[in-house]
């Protein structure tokens, strides 16, 4: 039977075999520096809540903001605040960071529920407060603060609460391993979330290339015996895990341009996000660690590691045995949407799902040639845009026409570039076009004189 799905998309080689069977290894460094950027989410950056020289505990808040759309940052180790200042981050820019010298003791401070003076587990009317206080953001990579997502605008009835375990990015297995190893936590987490949305079905969406995860999660949901929850197997197709695509596949609903999932009755959270929600609501634990797939053809022993946030990419790579040869690209994330890094001396943040090191053989190092008008980008675009045309318009700097042609709907999934025989930098030009339009809008929106 063909599963309902979205139109477009591509089938890149999945590279998952490298780490699919690797159980998550806990790795807690015994010393060294951990670096915590003050902006690890979409929204307002945090301000430091500690000073240089302060002793901090694991779970202690390092930074927070008064803004609604923001999320606090916690120390993942115990130790001393060594510095507060600019450090290199994954995208290659210098960002304000809190640097903690790890004492290796992992001494834990009071938990959130205790600090907030709440019962254990928290009562439903306190959920959003706890989730905000726990610094939970979309851990699939979008990093949008979860308490905002779980508070849909007035009048929206949520009918589908979708847990995104599609993990359509090639090479990554962090979500897959989480579903295999902590299905009970995820199932209970989903039940907790459903208590916020009485009319919603709870659906765990998993691509069919992860049959064990599908089975494990189904058994677990059955065990809880809640008829509102089920697993929905999904066609293996990139970008199945993109919010708009997954909503289309699971519910048949299409999100109009500019609208939110809640506008079509959906809330969608990544599995790791759900895990953090559960941990916060039941144990009062904020976002401290995450699972990261360290993989790629030049990594000596690829694996999945649960590490404290703030650890450097270099240390993580060394933990995976280092490189067998010099990679030409090291990515934070998967090969379709990951960010290529200039240096390995940057910290892991909340949204980092994988470290992927590619050799010259496997990385795309393209030389652009003329567009053939072959239509492969059009066929691949899951947003049903015409990437070749958008590319053309951006190169002409005709941003008005770019916007009219729907360019702002581009989700930067990379399907068009992946499919283009002429290796046009379609995704990149779309990204540039979007940035230009956004800058233009900001200029216009700015107070007049």
């Amino acid at each position, binding site marked *: 039977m063909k599963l309902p799905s979205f139109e477009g998309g591509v089938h890149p080689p999945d590279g998952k075999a490298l780490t699919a069977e690797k159980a998550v290894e806990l790795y807690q460094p015994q010393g060294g520096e951990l670096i915590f950027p003050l902006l690890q989410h979409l929204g307002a950056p945090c301000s430091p809540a500690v000073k240089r020289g302060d002793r901090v505990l694991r779970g202690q808040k390092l930074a927070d903001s008064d803004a609604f759309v923001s999320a606090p940052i916690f120390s993942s180790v115990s130790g001393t605040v060594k510095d507060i200042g600019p450090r290199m981050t994954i995208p290659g820019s210098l960002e304000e960071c809190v640097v903690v010298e790890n004492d290796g003791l992992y001494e834990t401070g009071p938990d959130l529920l205790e600090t907030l003076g709440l019962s254990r587990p928290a009562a439903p009317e306190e959920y959003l407060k706890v989730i905000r206080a726990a610094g939970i953001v979309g851990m699939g990579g979008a990093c949008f603060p979860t308490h905002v997502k779980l508070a849909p605008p007035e009048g929206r009835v949520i009918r589908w609460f979708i847990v995104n375990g599609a993990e359509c990015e090639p090479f990554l297995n962090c979500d897959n391993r989480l579903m295999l190893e902590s299905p009970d936590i995820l199932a209970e987490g989903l039940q907790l979330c459903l208590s916020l949305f009485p009319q919603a079905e709870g659906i765990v969406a998993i691509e069919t290339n992860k049959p064990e995860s599908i089975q494990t999660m189904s058994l677990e949901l059955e065990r809880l015996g809640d008829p509102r929850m089920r697993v929905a197997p999904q066609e293996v197709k990139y970008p199945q895990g993109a919010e708009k695509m997954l909503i289309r596949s699971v519910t048949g609903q*299409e999100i109009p341009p500019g609208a939110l999932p809640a506008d079509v009755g959906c809330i969608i959270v990544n599995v790791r996000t759900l895990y953090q929600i559960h941990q916060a609501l039941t144990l009062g634990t904020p976002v401290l660690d995450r699972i990261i797939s360290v993989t790629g053809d030049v990594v000596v022993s690829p694996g999945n590691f649960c590490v404290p946030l703030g650890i450097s990419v270099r240390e993580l790579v060394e933990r995976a045995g280092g490189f067998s040869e010099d990679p030409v690209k090291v*990515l934070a994330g998967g090969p379709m949407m990951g960010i290529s890094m200039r240096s390995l001396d940057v910290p892991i943040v909340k949204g980092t799902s994988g470290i992927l090191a590619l050799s010259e053989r496997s990385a795309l190092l393209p030389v652009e040639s*003329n567009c053939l*008008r072959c239509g492969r980008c059009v066929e691949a675009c899951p947003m049903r845009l015409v990437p070749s045309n958008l590319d053309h318009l951006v190169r002409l700097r005709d941003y008005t026409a770019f916007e009219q042609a729907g360019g702002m709907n581009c989700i930067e999934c*990379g399907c068009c570039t992946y499919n283009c025989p002429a290796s046009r930098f379609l995704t990149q030009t779309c990204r540039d076009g979007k940035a230009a339009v956004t800058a233009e809008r900001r200029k216009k929106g700015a107070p007049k004189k």
Partner: protein
Amino acid sequence: MTSRLVIASSPHIHSGLTTQKIMGWVLLSLLPAGLAGACFFGARALTVVAVCVVTCVLSEALWQKAMGQPITVSDLSAAVTGVLLAYNLPPTIPLWMAGLGSVFAIILCKQFFGGLGGNIVNPALAGRAMMLISWPVAMTTWTLNGVSGATPLALIKEGVSASVDALPPLWDLVIGRVGGCIGETSAVALLLGGGLLIWKGIISWRIPVVYIAVVAVLSLLLGRTGGVFYEVLAGGLLLGAFFMATDYTTSPMTARGQIIFAAGCGLLTALIRTFGGYPEGVSYSILIMNLTVPLIDGMTKPRILGEVKK
């Protein structure tokens, strides 16, 4: 070590299908028709193909060099144009004419428009059209095994229609033992090549299937003498439908657009064959439809996900 890391925008992997590979597949699938041509028209046919390919590739390289552009003949698109032009010429064509036609196709129809992807009409077909206007006699002299004679479609046009028996048997059309252009006569060879292109995903089935189906249905409605199979197998229809109307640059990008385009090609072909001054209408039909591509593309823009239909 880390200083050598490449910084680039995502995505970081690629399907591996390049322009060169696509053109390579097209050349490979054109091979059977060329062999059939050599088989029925002799080695002369191969000489014409060689002249066209070499002239196309050389003129592209020289032009790009003269213009200070990067030389891109290794993408094989000029070679494809050369083969397609040759396949649309009679085997007896003087070689200098074939050479001039090639120069015209590459320089005037392709490079003047910005090279690969920029042209608005199929260069091979435009080259052929130019040659037909310039040298009408040489372009319509058909021989088979050294004996000159008319093509099946010309016979129908001349009104041999009275008796179907005067036409070559259908079987000869299937294998290609009839008068005609070098690469157009052997239905079986063309179907083999076209099938390969569809199977490998280089072209979609839409344009050839719709094109051929429309011609078949219309020839039935218009009561053409030879019958449906005859209309489909005779002349340049198969070559045109599989290899020329499917040219990426000069056909629409979306599925719906391709169907409209192919239906237009089919309609024009049937009309020209029946009512036009020429016995054959494939080349002109495709050329005319090439010109409508921007219009069709504009009309068949895909609906953006979530956008409400207007």
